[in-house]
C-alpha cells in the first residue's frame, strides 16, 4: 500500500514536473528578495540646500565631478597657503594671465589684495556661481571661524570674491582670482585725418570688461573725445544693441599731435551671452579753441563747440576679430 502511494506521488510529480519546478523557483525568488529587503537598510544622504557645485545662476548646470574634485583640491591647497600667510606659494598657483592682468606681475599687489580680501578670515565656503563653456566661476566667501566663537561679541559678516577655473586642453585647471576671467588681443583700428584709434586688447573680469585703447591726435587742433558736454561720448554696443557707457572715463582731451593710452571700463557680466560688438566715440570734436569745462561759462563752451573744425563719431568693431 505504501509503495502504491509512492508510485502515485511519483506519477503526480512526473505529470506536473514543469509546474512544480516553476512554483519552487518563484517561491525561492520571492523568499530571497523578501529576506534581502528585510535586512536592507538604505542610508539616506543628508539633504540640504548647500550644493557647492551647482550653479547659482542656472541650477540645471552642475560642474562635472572630475572638475569639481580638481576645484576642491586646488582651493584647499590655495586657501591653506593663504590662511597660513604663505602668500608666495598661493601666488604661484595663479595662472600667468591672472598674475599679469590682475596684479601686473607684482607679488606685492597680490599680497595687498589678499590682506584686503581675506584679512583675518579663518574659514572659506565655496559655491559654483556660473559656468560658461570650460570656464567655471566660483564664489568664495571668507568668514571668521564662527563655529568656534559662537559669534560671541561679533556679528555675522564675510568678504567674497569670484575665483575662476578654466579647463585646459590637457585636462588641468587654470586658476584666477580677483574676478579675472579672460584676456584677448583685438588690435582693431579706426582712423581719419584727425584721429587714429586702436582698440588693442580686452581684459574680461566677471562683472566688467576693460579695453586698452590707444588714441592719436593727428591734427593741429585739440581733439575732445569726452568732457561730459555731450551724450554718449564713449560707449560699448552689445549684440542686442544695448549700450554701456564707460565707467571710468569722463575727460579725454588730446592736444595737437598727442598720443595716449587709456583703459576703458564697461559694465558687462562675463556669463551674459550678449557679447560686445563695437566701441564707439559718439561725439568727437576737433576744436581750434578749447577752454575746457571748469570755470567756463556755458556761452563760451557752446560757442567753441559751434566753431569746431569737425564733429564726428568713431566706431571700432570688436567682435569680428575675436
Amino acid at each position, binding site marked *: 500500500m505504501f*509503495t*502504491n502511494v*509512492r*508510485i502515485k506521488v*511519483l506519477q503526480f*510529480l*512526473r505529470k506536473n*514536473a514543469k509546474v*512544480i*519546478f516553476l512554483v*519552487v*523557483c518563484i517561491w*525561492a525568488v520571492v*523568499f*530571497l528578495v523578501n*529576506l534581502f529587503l*528585510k*535586512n536592507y537598510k538604505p542610508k*539616506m544622504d*543628508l*539633504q*540640504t*540646500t*548647500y550644493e*557647492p557645485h551647482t550653479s547659482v545662476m542656472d541650477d540645471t548646470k552642475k560642474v562635472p565631478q572630475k572638475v569639481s574634485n580638481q576645484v576642491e583640491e586646488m582651493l584647499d591647497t590655495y586657501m591653506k597657503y593663504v590662511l597660513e600667510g604663505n602668500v608666495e606659494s598661493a601666488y604661484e598657483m595663479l595662472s600667468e594671465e591672472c598674475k599679469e592682468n590682475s596684479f601686473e606681475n607684482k607679488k606685492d599687489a597680490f599680497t595687498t589684495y589678499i590682506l584686503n580680501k581675506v584679512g583675518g578670515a579663518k*574659514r572659506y*565656503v*565655496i559655491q559654483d556661481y556660473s559656468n560658461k563653456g570650460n570656464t567655471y566661476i566660483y564664489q568664495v*566667501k571668507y*568668514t571668521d*571661524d*564662527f*563655529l*568656534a*566663537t*559662537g*559669534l*560671541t*561679541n561679533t556679528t*555675522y559678516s*564675510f568678504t567674497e570674491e569670484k575665483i575662476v577655473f578654466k579647463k585646459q586642453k590637457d585636462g588641468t585647471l587654470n586658476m584666477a582670482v580677483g574676478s579675472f576671467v579672460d584676456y584677448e588681443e583685438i588690435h582693431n583700428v579706426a582712423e581719419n585725418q584727425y584721429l587714429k584709434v586702436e582698440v588693442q586688447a580686452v581684459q574680461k573680469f566677471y562683472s566688467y570688461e576693460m579695453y586698452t585703447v590707444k588714441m592719436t591726435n593727428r591734427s593741429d587742433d585739440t581733439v575732445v573725445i569726452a568732457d561730459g558736454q555731450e551724450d554718449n561720448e564713449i560707449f560699448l554696443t552689445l549684440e542686442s544693441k544695448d549700450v554701456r557707457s564707460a565707467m571710468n572715463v569722463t575727460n579725454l582731451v588730446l592736444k595737437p599731435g598727442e598720443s595716449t593710452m587709456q583703459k576703458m571700463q564697461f559694465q558687462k557680466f562675463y556669463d551674459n551671452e550678449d557679447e560686445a560688438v563695437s566701441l564707439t566715440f559718439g561725439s568727437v570734436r576737433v576744436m581750434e579753441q578749447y577752454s575746457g569745462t571748469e570755470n567756463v561759462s556755458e556761452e563760451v563752451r557752446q560757442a567753441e563747440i559751434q566753431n569746431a573744425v569737425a564733429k564726428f563719431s568713431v566706431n571700432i568693431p570688436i567682435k569680428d576679430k575675436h
Partner: protein
Amino acid sequence: MEKNKIQFSSTDKKLYIGVAIILLIVILAAIINARSRMNQPTIGDIDEVTQEVLENDKNQKLVAALQNMEEKDRMEYYFGMFLGYIEEGKYERAYDLLYSDFKNLYFPTLEDFEKYIPTVFTEMSDIAHENIERSGDVYILWITIADAIHGKPSDKKEMNIVIQEKDYNDFVMSFSVI
C-alpha cells in the same frame, strides 16, 4: 510476490537535483539570516536589552523623523535638543554637543559650562527664532531667550546659535556667550 520498483528517469533526476539546489540555497540564506539575528539582543530577552539597543532604536526613529524635516526645522530641533538637556539637568550631554574649539575657548571643563548655565538658561526657557542663515554647511540662528516662568519681557536676551550638521542627528554647535 513481485516487488514494485520505482524507476527514476533522467528528467526526474534533473528535476529533483534542480529543486534540491534551490531549496539548499534558500535554507542556507535562512540559516545565515537566523544566525545574524541571534547575535543581536531582542526585546523579548528583556534582561539582555542594553541601554545601547534602546538608544539605537530611538536614534533610528529620530533620524527617520529628521529626514522628513526642512533644514530650518532640523536646526531648531537640534537647538531644542541642547536646551532640553539643560532643562533636564543633563549638562554633560549638552556639553558633548558643543564644538570642541568652542569648548576650548569658553568652557574648557564641564564645571565651567555648568557655572555658566544659570546666567543665561533657566529651568524653562522661552525661545523665539528670529532668523536663520546658512554659510556652507554651517547654520546661524538668531534667537531671543527669556525665562518662561519668572521672566519679564524686558529680560529677553538675543543670542546666536551656530550649528554644523554632519549627518542626520550628528551635529556640533556653539552659541554666543552673553
